[in-house]
């Protein structure tokens, strides 16, 4: 139906993807700089600020996104896709920039964490509105039969945004001294956002409205009340529920397991040194990202359903063997110690005494176990950090890459799948909500619920307790897989583009 030329659609893709990528960048730098932000705004010895910190993480990351989807989705179906996702871009950019400008807790007291919380909530709202707009805008420009391919470029933006946020922080850290970064340098990644948003805004400003929406508006067939038509109309509501329970719910947990749970597992359960984990995850993400496009393209040829369900099934079947292999790759019980030495030191300011036992293994692995004794505490605290060898590093990169492949299978085609499910007049609203509930709520709660399973199993004395955190994504993805396979039709799409 669309007459947009290939050259024209590249402009659309560039403008949409850049803006969406920047929004993900903005969203992730808060998480990537969480440690320094907590010291500046949320001192841990104050229970109220700790509460605000938790709210800022949970509420904005998970809960507010569906509300943003409803608010901006409604706007997008009323006034147009272009102006709405320009508004979300500006809201996100300004919120991010302002977080970088807020004086610390030491300077303005409780106002500081409160302002951060409010701005973080605005970030969550903006993100909730952005994705649906970008996916809809691109899909409505894309030639029939190629929506999977073109919208898959939007699907790469979350991963690329995460990658760029890590790179900007890394460059800033390496450019400045540790003292300067801690003092003011951490604000730079937030300030950088406003320049990127400015450029993206100018590009988007010159784009045309989606041809499908423009036509509907001209014909007077746009929705008067998108929320009521999306969720108050039984015919549409059943597709919203099907999109959530048959696709986005499983996609959300697979996405979070492959990218964030894998990172958390390597850092906390396997005790691998943090920068090594970031590095190997970065390589796996880079290697895996092109497959978003591959599976988006393939979904145009063989249908969205079997690719997404295939990704879910592989994840369900292989998560436990993959994580067991990851754990065993670095398990120190399987390695032989070649050298051991101990160092001791004191920190008089903190009244702490440190004993560091360094074990060097025959395969090049190094494990440093730090015992921290405090003058006022009876039991010493123990922290182990493992520096892995090159061979183990590449094994882990491969195992994370396989998980990223699952992510690309379920996530690559999903924008086209959602867009094709709903009629143009309520598309922005109807597709945004299941996407953000699936990702924000079901996916976003994964770390907390999985940690609960692991802790429960550890207390019960199970030897493979470290694998039990995977039950949450496995159960959610299994339910989603059954619903998707039985209820979603691969051919008979409810398409109105």
């Amino acid at each position: 139906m669309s007459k947009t030329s290939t050259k024209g659609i590249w402009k659309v893709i560039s403008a949409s993807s850049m803006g969406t990528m920047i929004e993900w960048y903005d969203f992730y730098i808060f998480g990537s700089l969480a440690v320094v932000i907590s010291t500046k705004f949320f001192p841990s010895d104050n229970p109220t600020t700790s509460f605000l910190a938790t709210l800022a993480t949970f509420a904005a990351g998970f809960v507010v996104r569906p509300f943003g989807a409803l608010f901006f989705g409604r706007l997008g179906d009323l006034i147009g896709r272009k102006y709405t996702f320009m508004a979300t871009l500006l809201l996100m950019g300004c919120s991010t920039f302002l977080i970088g400008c807020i004086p610390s807790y030491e300077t303005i007291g409780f106002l500081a964490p409160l302002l951060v919380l409010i701005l973080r909530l605005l970030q969550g709202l903006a993100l909730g509105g952005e994705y649906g707009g970008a996916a809809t805008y691109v899909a409505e420009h894309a030639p029939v039969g190629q929506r999977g391919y073109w919208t898959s470029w939007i699907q790469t933006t979350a991963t690329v945004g995460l990658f760029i946020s890590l790179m900007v922080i890394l460059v800033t850290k390496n450019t400045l001294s540790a003292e300067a970064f801690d003092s003011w340098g951490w604000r730079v990644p937030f300030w950088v956002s406003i320049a990127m948003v400015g450029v993206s805004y100018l590009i988007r400003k010159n784009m045309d409205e989606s041809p499908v929406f423009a036509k509907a508006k001209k014909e007077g067939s746009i929705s008067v009340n998108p929320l009521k038509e999306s969720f108050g109309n039984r015919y549409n509501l059943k597709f919203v529920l099907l999109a959530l329970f048959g696709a986005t719910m499983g996609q959300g947990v697979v996405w979070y397991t492959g990218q964030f749970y894998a990172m958390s597992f390597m850092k906390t359960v396997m005790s691998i040194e943090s920068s090594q984990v970031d590095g190997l995850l970065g390589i796996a993400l880079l290697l895996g990202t092109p497959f978003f496009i591959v599976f988006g393209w393939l979904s145009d040829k063989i249908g969205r359903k079997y690719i997404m369900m295939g990704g879910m099934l592989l994840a369900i079947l292989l998560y436990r063997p993959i994580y067991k292999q990851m754990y065993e790759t670095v398990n120190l019980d399987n390695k032989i110690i070649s050298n051991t030495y101990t160092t001791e030191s004191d920190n008089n300011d903190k009244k702490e005494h440190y004993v560091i036992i360094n074990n060097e293994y025959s395969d090049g692995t190094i494990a440093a176990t730090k015992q921290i004794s405090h003058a006022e505490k009876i039991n010493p605290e123990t922290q182990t950090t493992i520096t892995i060898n090159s061979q183990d590093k590449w094994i882990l990169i491969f195992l994370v890459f396989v998980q990223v492949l699952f992510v690309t299978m379920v996530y690559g085609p999903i924008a086209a799948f959602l867009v094709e499910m709903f009629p143009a007049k309520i598309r922005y609203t109807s597709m945004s909500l299941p996407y953000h509930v699936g990702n924000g709520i079901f996916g976003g709660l994964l770390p907390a619920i999985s940690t609960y399973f692991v802790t429960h199993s550890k207390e019960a004395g199970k030897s493979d307790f470290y694998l039990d955190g995977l039950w949450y994504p496995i159960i959610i993805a299994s339910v989603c897989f059954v619903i998707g396979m039985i209820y979603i039709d691969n051919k008979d799409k409810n398409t109105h583009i």
Partner: protein
Amino acid sequence: MNLLKRILGILWIILSIAAAYFCIFEFGLPKLVSDKQDDLVFGIIILFILTPLIVLGLGTFGYFSLIGEYDKRK
């Protein structure tokens, strides 16, 4: 396939009730009475966001399945 969809509707309704039990009594309420601030926020989200979503959402999905809303002919 239509019959299977309808029969599974009952399963989704039962599953939504079972999920409600776990969300309220296993995850939600114990977190609310915990002393940790993280647990309190987590408990509130489980009880007031996740539980209604699963119970109402999956329950309604099950009901729609049961009455044949997802039948092929529709």
